[in-house]
């Protein structure tokens, strides 16, 4: 090559070696549209080329798994003919470039992943992370992301049940926006992302295709950031929740009337993915006519149409005799529909535009022949140094420390965010935001579905394996305190640049940690997502896996525990092991400075016993609350604030009050109960102050600190 210009494949984010693979698959130089398709399908975001080899470690099987990883969402059997579909995704990079639309389209995308399976989406959660709110840009990002989640989720008509929020310096240049969706469906309504059989007709449903989001997967989500990030704004898609709402209702009607053989949403990589993957899964090919695609603007080229990530689109595969009926359903719900292709008996994906052939490739090669990298893995040298400097707080003033913790935006009330989300729609929210886990009733079954997500970048920085294992145990316990037994896990691995061996080591450790904990709990990983290149100007984020655990309460407790049900005279019990003096990764440590030390490891034997106890107690105790962020003192304070009742606690010592060791929860019970084996009585509810040892504070003062945490920071 004699020109100084960057070759087209490189502009599309491909390496020379990857380009050569395309040539060897095709036996010739690719046409422009073909190159476009390979570039997005082989991006890190779509192909998991750096992580795929390691993700095989996850345990994925259990008798109740109906659909495991690899489809649009994981699906598990919850009995009585019902299935639950669950999926988690990240929209980190788009949200940094354009927070409102980035978060909004993240919500839209995760919904499509779930209703693609035949499920009605019934609840959303989000896990969002930002730099400290004393910086204006972080406030802008936080405000925009929450606004986007609210704006899209509320209007699309799916309740958002909260999630989690973390603030840390490492997210200043790279916020994390993860979204999770749960759907439920009747067994017979399950649909897969398959083209079905030759002759089936591909019907494109929903929004018109435009130039938005072109290269979102390759240019945005699979590359690092620098000061030029704002110039990538045109790669962010724009969401329309109204269009998605109509699309959900139309698709659910198609499933109910058994009119589709398979269906695939158009997310990352747009039509390239939605045509090649279902064809590839069926071992077939497809003829696609781009002139039939309904467009939003004129003059779009074939590569643009194939790469566009315009939102709110689905591709349904329909038997020829059902096409008219499908078009009628679309018309009734006031969405556009175009017949754009036909499934071929061979394996070729043949695309035409303006009457000319623009692509002719083996359909499966776009997904199956994606590069697979075994990138170098190396334990970071700085870890031993961190481990050698544990935080040792000694004795601390109890009430002042408690108030300081409650004022932290990552510890105090998240109501500022979740009260902007409709979290009550569908009359299913039995335990909503502000609790350890969410609990939804499944109408007509007497059962409940519980969900909790947990992440903790600081803990995972100090020990990605122990940290991520603890996330699984914590989410499992959070589900158990609503009365549910853990059933399945999904995970979203947010990490830095995989081309650095230290980041790859973190990935491997995180996968090991999650796998080990899931094996001990006997639950499978049914889906997940990996978000790499979370670095800006060379600085990687803390390794931040987010783990979601789905649990089944069968039966659901008649009156599931809630934080606001404590009354004067009730006893307070602490269930779980004695805490150690280890504060690595805790909020107390965060309050005082940098992270250090090696976090306490989870203990599977104890963890299982504590979960058993929590599920049993959920049927008798008015309040169960897990000990986590901020330790026991914060746990008790939150119960006092929610119930409007004081308490007297007969415990002392920094480790007891502020340690965050795993497997512990508090039960508030009426006196005279049958005490659990792992429990000890630590106090009693009553009065209008919280008294710990010799110190006390009014519940009103606790509430003021806790409620004001985020609003005050947003005003700063």
């Amino acid at each position, binding site marked *: 090559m004699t020109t100084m210009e960057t070759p087209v494949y490189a502009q599309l984010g491909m390496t020379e070696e990857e380009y050569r693979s395309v040539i060897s698959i095709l036996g010739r130089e690719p046409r422009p549209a073909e190159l476009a398709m390979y570039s997005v399908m082989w991006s890190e975001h779509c192909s998991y080329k750096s992580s795929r080899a390691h993700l095989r470690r996850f345990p994925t099987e259990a008798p109740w798994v109906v659909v495991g990883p690899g489809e649009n969402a994981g699906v598990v059997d919850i009995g009585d003919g019902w299935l639950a579909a669950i999926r988690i995704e990240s929209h980190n990079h788009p949200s940094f470039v354009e927070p409102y639309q980035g978060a909004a389209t993240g919500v839209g995308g995760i919904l499509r992943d779930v209703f693609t399976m035949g499920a009605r989406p019934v609840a959303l959660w989000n896990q969002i992370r930002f730099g400290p709110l004393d910086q204006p840009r972080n406030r802008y990002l936080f405000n925009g992301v929450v606004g986007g989640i*609210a704006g899209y989720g*509320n*209007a699309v*008509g799916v309740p958002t049940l909260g999630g989690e929020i973390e603030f840390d310096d490492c997210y200043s240049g790279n916020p994390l926006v993860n979204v999770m969706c749960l759907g439920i469906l009747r067994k017979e309504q399950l649909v897969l992302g398959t083209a079905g059989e030759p002759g089936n007709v591909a019907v494109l449903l929903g929004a018109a295709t435009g130039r938005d989001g072109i290269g979102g997967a390759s240019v945005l989500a699979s590359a690092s950031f620098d000061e030029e990030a704002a110039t990538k704004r045109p790669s962010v898609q724009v969401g*329309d*929740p*109204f*269009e998605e*709402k*109509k699309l959900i209702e139309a698709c659910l009607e198609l499933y109910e009337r058994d009119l589709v053989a398979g269906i695939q949403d158009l997310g990352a990589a747009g039509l390239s993915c939605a045509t090649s993957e279902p064809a590839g899964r069926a071992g077939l090919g497809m003829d696609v006519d781009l002139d039939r695609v309904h467009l939003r603007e004129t003059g779009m080229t074939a590569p643009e149409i194939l790469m566009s990530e315009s939102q709110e689109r689905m591709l349904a595969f329909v038997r020829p005799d059902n096409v008219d009926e499908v078009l009628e359903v679309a018309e*009734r*719900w*006031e969405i556009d529909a175009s017949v754009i292709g036909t499934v071929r008996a061979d394996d070729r994906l043949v695309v035409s535009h303006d009457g000319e052939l623009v692509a002719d490739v083996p359909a499966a090669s776009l997904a199956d022949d994606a590069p697979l990298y075994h990138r170098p893995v190396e334990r970071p040298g700085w870890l031993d140094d961190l481990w050698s400097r544990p935080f040792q707080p000694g004795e601390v003033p109890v009430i002042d420390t408690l108030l300081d913790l409650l004022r932290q935006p990552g510890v105090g009330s998240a*109501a500022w965010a*979740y*009260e*902007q*989300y*409709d*979290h*009550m*729609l*569908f*009359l299913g*929210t*039995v335990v909503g935001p502000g609790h350890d886990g969410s609990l939804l*009733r499944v109408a007509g079954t007497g059962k409940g579905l519980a969900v909790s997500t947990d992440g903790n970048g600081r803990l995972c920085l100090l020990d990605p394996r122990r940290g991520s294992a603890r996330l699984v145990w914590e989410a499992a316990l959070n589900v158990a305190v609503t009365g549910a037994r853990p059933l399945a896990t999904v995970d979203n691995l947010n990490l830095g640049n995989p081309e650095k061996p230290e980041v790859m080591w973190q990935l491997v450790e995180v996968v090991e940690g999650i796998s080990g904990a899931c094996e001990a709990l006997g639950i499978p990983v049914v889906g997940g997502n990996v978000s790499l290149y979370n670095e800006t100007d060379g600085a990687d984020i803390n390794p931040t896996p987010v783990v979601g655990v789905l649990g089944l309460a069968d039966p659901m407790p008649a*009156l599931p525990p809630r934080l606001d049900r404590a009354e004067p005279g009730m006893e307070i019990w602490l269930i779980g092991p004695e805490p150690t003096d280890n504060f690595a990764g805790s909020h107390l440590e965060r309050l005082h400075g940098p992270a250090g030390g090696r976090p306490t490891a989870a203990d599977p034997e104890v963890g299982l016993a504590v979960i058993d106890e929590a599920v049993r107690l959920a049927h008798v105790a008015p309040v169960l609350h897990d000990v986590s962020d901020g330790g026991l003192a914060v746990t008790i304070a939150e119960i006092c604030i929610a119930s409007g009742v004081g308490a007297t606690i007969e415990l002392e010592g920094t480790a007891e009050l502020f340690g965050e060791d795993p497997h512990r929860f508090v039960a508030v019970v009426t006196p005279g109960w049958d005490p659990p084996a792992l429990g000890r009585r630590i106090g009693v509810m009553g009065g209008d102050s919280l008294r710990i040892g010799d110190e006390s504070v009014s519940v009103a003062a606790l509430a003021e600190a806790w409620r004001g945490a985020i609003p005050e920071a947003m005003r700063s």
Partner: protein
Amino acid sequence: MRVAVAVFPGSNCEHDVVRALGTLGAEPELVWHRETDLEGFDGVVLPGGFAHGDALRTGAIAALSPIMEPVRRMAESGKPVLGICNGFQILCEAGMLPGALIANRDLAFICRFVEVEVVDTGTVLTAAAEPGQMLRIPLNSYEGNWVDPARTGRVVVRYADDPNGSQDRAAAVANEAGNVVGIMPHPERASDPLLGSDDGLVLLEGFVRSLRASVPA
């Protein structure tokens, strides 16, 4: 007692309303917004949601939907007409209730339980409530701030505090005759103690009682 629950593209509370009214002995049926005939129904509910995506203004396009003609005829004949949240906005846009709903004072969506007081029991929504009765019901709106410059509205339920800046702290407003009512909080969401409150049933019971009264003998 057949009651139509209107469904616009973008409505989302229709199934919740059907469920809550069903438990109270009414016979709710979903009716698509293109319907032009509500003959045989004893009343109608316009449920919450984002009809037509709130395009232009909340309720503005829905007020022009075909179904609004028979809804208007129903109102004129004295039958019970209830708008909840977005339904309230639609009734204001259609001119069937006074005033308009604008963005909340703090320019943020509000989803939480609020305390309200029943101040007028002479309407189809409040027929079963006691005067001064306090209820705990969820609010769920961005445009929940009712303004009525002409001061012709009949406030029937009032917020105990002032969550959104609504004039006269109005949470529910009726027409002169009391058969058309719009309420911003969602009574159907407070229909089961398991969901945190069943205070909304007092209002829905009043509505069902009014439906019964409007069944032709």
